[in-house]
């Protein structure tokens, strides 16, 4: 590993300190898994919403269906109406689909790119490692929101650009995790054995190393997903993210912000939606078995 590696603050978020004392550990694990189950339930709920959204909307999300703006919750409009009199339930269902879908795609792209680059660095020479690490170190130094502002200013905001921006911004973090996993794996006996018996580098990387990286990379993928949700809804809140007529959860808060004074559900509910999604992901990942153990093993290696 390059000694000057700049630490990224993100992965430490849910990182567990290794705990000793078996009684303590058992108690805290039970408590955490309760929180973890809540997290899992929230995540599953939002995934289902994102998946089924278009088929369960009661109204067309763009249609003005009520003459009353910022209507309170009612039987006809379970979540009230927005600043134009559109049905809020439909808009949140579709908004969640944008938020979850975009963030999933971007997090997947970032994790894949990070894993591939991490493996590449582990099986190639020093120069490739230096070059890749340097460039990714530079990208990680541009805070993700700043990077997104630069990209939006240069190219204008669009869904593909937001996806690309989030993916680029979060690739270095995934790369660091993948690289350190791959470096640890490359000194294990079975990988050495595969090398000695003359397997090709690609075989060593894909058949021997990759399967053992998938679990930790999945936990990291969840964290990356959460950060991308925060980034994209922040951008939409500023009016620089998903552009009207389409709207993700962040844009819903922005366009209904004038209802804040009267406490309209149109502005409060999308806010709750974002918070339950991101908190759910974070609680779930923190409770994943193996996160604590992984840090312990990493420390011992």
């Amino acid at each position, binding site marked *: 590993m390059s000694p000057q590696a700049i630490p990224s603050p993100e992965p430490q978020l849910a990182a567990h300190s290794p705990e000793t004392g078996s009684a303590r550990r058992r108690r805290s694990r039970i408590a955490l898994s309760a929180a973890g189950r809540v997290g899992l339930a929230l995540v599953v709920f939002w995934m289902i919403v994102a998946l089924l959204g278009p088929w369960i909307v009661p109204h067309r999300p763009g249609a003005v269906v009520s003459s009353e703006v910022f209507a309170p919750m009612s039987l006809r409009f379970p979540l009230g109406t927005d600043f134009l009199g559109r049905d809020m339930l439909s808009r949140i269902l579709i908004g969640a689909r944008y938020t979850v879908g975009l963030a999933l795609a971007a997090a997947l792209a970032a994790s894949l790119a990070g894993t591939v680059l991490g493996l590449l660095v582990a099986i190639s020479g020093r120069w490739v490692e230096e070059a890749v690490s340097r460039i990714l170190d530079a990208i990680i130094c*541009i805070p993700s929101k*700043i990077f997104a502002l630069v990209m939006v200013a240069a190219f204008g905001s669009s869904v593909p650009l937001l996806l690309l921006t989030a993916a680029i911004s979060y690739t270095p973090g995934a790369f660091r995790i993948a690289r350190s996993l791959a470096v640890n794996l490359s000194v294990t006996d079975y990988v050495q054995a595969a090398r000695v018996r003359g397997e090709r580098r690609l075989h060593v990387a894909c058949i021997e190393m990759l399967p053992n990286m998938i679990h930790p990379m999945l936990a990291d993928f969840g964290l990356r997903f959460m950060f991308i949700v925060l980034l994209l809804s922040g951008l939409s809140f500023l009016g620089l993210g998903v552009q009207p007529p389409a709207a993700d959860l*962040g844009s819903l808060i922005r366009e209904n912000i004038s209802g804040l004074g009267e406490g309209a559900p149109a502005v409060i509910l999308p806010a709750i939606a974002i918070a339950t999604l991101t908190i759910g992901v974070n609680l779930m990942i923190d409770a994943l078995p193996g996160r604590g153990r992984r840090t312990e093993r990493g420390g011992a290696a």
Partner: protein
Amino acid sequence: MSGSIPSLIAKRIAAAALTLLLVSMIVFSITSLLPGDAAQAALGQNATPAALAALRAQLGLDQPAIIRYLHWLGGLLTGHPGRSLSDGLPVSVLIAKRLPESLLLAGLTTAVSVPLALALGIVAAMYRGSWLDRALTITTLSMVAVPEFLVATAGVLIFAVELHWLSALTFVLDHPTFGQLLRGYTLPVVSLCFAVTAQMERMTRAAVIDQLNQPYVEMAALKGVGLSRRVLVHALPNAVGPIANAIALSLSYLLGGAIIVETIFDYPGVARLMVDAVSNRDMPVLQACAMIFSAGYLGLVLIADVCAILSNPKLRRS
């Protein structure tokens, strides 16, 4: 790799400078991938080709990208990063006006979040596994996951709209009284503190627990030393390095948070300047702001690194 602490630190600084150079290349190439746009934007769609060509020559847009990059980099290093496209003022003047305000906000946030996070983190580590610790874990995990704009809008709704206790906008006065300062700054500072404090608490807790697991603390416990003495006298001095590292890394969260918070409260800082530059497509301002934020991030990481080097005798030898 061998070397004394000063040479190790010098190496880190050199690496940071190299990284910053790469950052400048990335920022410049993204913002100048669409050539001639600045002139077109300034003159509009109906500009004559001659006027366009003249303005391009004036702005130096007719030169190859590498020359423009070197010119821009030279300006950046000598404190003359060009002029704003929207109001023609030098970028350095605009930033000089805004930077102290942003630093004030960051300073206030640091002053609030660091003591709070340290106290909570140390208490959580002392009573780890207890109800208090678990409650703190869930709270901080949730706080990290809540976006700044949610905290800020909820705060505005409750304390400014409903209760009229605090101001929804932050006015910068020349000689504010303490009361005015409190009214204006409480909401932005609290919004910024949210994620930073939570992050710092978790890292502090981990650093202290790491020390509490060491044999020397066990030894002290076996000798009959009490819990608070074990933590405060034995473990804490050894955890200072990791904690300083944690503080510096957590503070880097401020940089992104500032973008949202300064916009919501219409606070006249650098982040607000940058968001305005995006809407105006004011590239010189945008580039300079991006470089300031990246340099700020690198600076904090460098401080974290140096703290880790100074506090860890093993690193000194490696």
